[in-house]
Structures are given as C-alpha cells and as structure tokens.
C-alpha cells in the first residue's frame, strides 16, 4: 500500500523480492545496500537461519530522492524462497506495491522458478490482488553460470504477461539496479495514476 503524506510531502512504497530458494533475492538487497550512498539508505535487517537462509525477510529502506516535491522512500523486502516457508512468504507480500521476481536462470532450476511464480500468483490472489494489477518485474539471475537457459526460453516459460525483464548476475551487481529502476518506475507510475487520473497516460514498458 503506497502511502502519500501530504503534510511532510513523503511517498512510501513497498517492493517485495520474490522467487525460489537461493535464486539471489537477498544478494540483490545486499548489493543495493553496498552501493547506495549512506545518506540514501537505512539499516539492512536480515532475519536468517544459522545457515544464512532467509527465515522471515530481509528489509532495506532506501530514499530515491525528490519527485515533484515529494521525498520518495522505498522499503525493499525479500521473502524466504524455500517452499516450506509459504506462510511467512504470504505475510511479507501483504501490502506490496510492486514485485521483483528473481528467477534462477540455471536449467536445473526451471521447475522451481515455475512453481515459485505460480505460488506468487496464488499468494497475491489470497491478498485479493490479481498479478496483472500490480507492477511486476522479472530478473533472470545467475547469467554468469554455465548451463543457463536463454532469455528467450526463460521468457517463454515465465514471462507470458510480457512484463519488463532483465538479465542479471546479482553477485557482481549486474542488472540489479536496472531491475530496481524498472520496478520503481512501474510502482510510481501506478501511484501517479491514482493521484489524479490523467487520460491517455499509460504505464510504459521496456
């Protein structure tokens, strides 16, 4: 749920990084945290198991700066990817304004990607949200590894709605900010549409 504070002129939006276990959701946030200047970010909170797997969520607040006189803040969350943690995944998804689906490009992980994407749609539906009504960006991660599917093959399996998609190697930072920029733009354009509905303006896609 985007919040617009007219008194302090602030906008706050929630972005959730979703995807199967070990696809690189936490790595995305860690890279963002490492690169964003200190005065544009808050503390990163990670609720992880002893083995560094996400147990509940990672959380990173960032400040995108001023848009139309409004300080624009984004709260970035990850969900735990393991199938076992669906209840917590659903909780973190609550109130999301946009979703980044981090897919693992490796051939061996396609089934997990598809299962996780279906799980995303299901969990959104349980919150009363149709996946077509929320900005979603797909990131094809781990492009640096061998035995990966081509982008075209991944698009065919996962991106049947033709949402913006980006290749990435989150560990090296490649594609991380392209993805974040795309989802930010999608969320803010959708918000603008609610502020005052201008005719003829549509969300542009890559």
């Amino acid at each position: 749920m985007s919040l617009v504070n007219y008194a302090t002129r602030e906008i706050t939006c929630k972005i959730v990084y979703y995807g199967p276990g070990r696809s690189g959701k936490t790595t995305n946030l860690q890279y963002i945290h490492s690169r964003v200047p200190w005065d544009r970010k808050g503390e990163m909170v990670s609720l992880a198991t002893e083995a560094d797997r996400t147990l509940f969520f990672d959380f990173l607040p960032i400040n995108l700066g001023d848009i139309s006189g409004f300080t624009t803040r984004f709260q970035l969350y990850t969900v735990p990817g393991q199938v076992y943690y669906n209840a917590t995944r659903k909780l973190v998804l609550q109130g999301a304004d946009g979703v980044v689906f981090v897919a693992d490009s490796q051939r061996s992980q396609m089934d997990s990607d598809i299962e996780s994407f279906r799980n995303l749609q299901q969990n959104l539906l349980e919150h009363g949200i149709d996946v077509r009504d929320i900005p979603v960006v797909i990131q094809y991660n781990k492009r640096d590894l061998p035995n990966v599917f081509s982008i075209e093959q991944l698009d065919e399996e996962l991106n049947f709605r033709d949402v913006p998609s980006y290749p990435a190697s989150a560990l090296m930072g490649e594609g991380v900010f392209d993805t974040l920029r795309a989802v930010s733009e999608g969320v803010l354009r959708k918000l603008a549409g609610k502020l005052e509905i201008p005719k003829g303006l549509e969300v542009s896609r890559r």
Partner: protein
Amino acid sequence: MDRLDLRQIQEAFSSPLEEFVRETRVRLAVLINRSGQVLAQHGFDKLFDLVGVASLAAGINASSRALAVQLGEEEFEHLHHAGRSRQLFLGHFDSAAGQLMLVTVFDERSSIGLVRLFFEEFVMRLRGLPAMDMARSRISAQQFEAELEASLDRFFQDLIGT
C-alpha cells in the same frame, strides 16, 4: 484501500499519541500500519532505527495473527517483550484507517500495567474520532509523471552499469 492521506491521520492521532506518551512516560510511541509503514510517532527516538523497528514490529504482528488463526483464534492479545532495561509493547486495533498498531518502547520509568491501561484509553479516543475520508488529490499526476523519469535518472545514474 490503496493509500491513505497521512495528514488527516497525523492531525487526528497526534494529540492522543502525545497524551499517551506523557501519561505512560514511554520513550517512544510509533503508530504503524500492517505493512510496517510509519504513520505517526512521538517520543525520544534518537537511539532507535525507527523504520527498522516498525518493519520488525509489523512482522511480529503478522506472524502472531497467522499463528492465532492456525490455532483457531481470530487474533491474539497484544504482545509484550521484556529485556533487562527496555521493554516493547505492540498493541493492535481497528480504526477508520484500517488495522493499526501502536509500538511502544519503555524502560524503568514506565511499566507494562501503565502502558496497557493508557493503550486502552488511546484506542477509545481514536475510536471516538470521526471517520476519515480517503485521500484527496493535491498533486498533479501529469507533473509527477513528467518529473518521474528525470528523478529516477538522478538516483540511478551512478548505480546502473557499475
């Protein structure tokens, strides 16, 4: 509900929140929604990462509610965590602006009994407020969209491609 006009909320809630802090002598009182976004705050907060506290509190509340449902309860009562010097109280309630939570941090100057007592009063005062309307547009969407791309470029120019 897609968004709320926080000015209405802050104006309506600021007096009861101030009074709650004064009466209970808690160090910090933060009003948040179920997503963990801060709607209003009062008290000394320099020691705390406010946004982090809010997101974690929302997480605790969400998991507590889910557990309650699994155990056949609609919801659990409020949550209280006590440390050696500081304590945390999370009280949730329904309001005209949806379900909200009051997160309070207190030390030896207050007590859980005092906090619970005045929390009930706080909620009663809020329930007595007139219903708040949804937000009214006070921003030009066209101007916002026009500035959006340039603003995002400014933020991401040094970050993309690195």
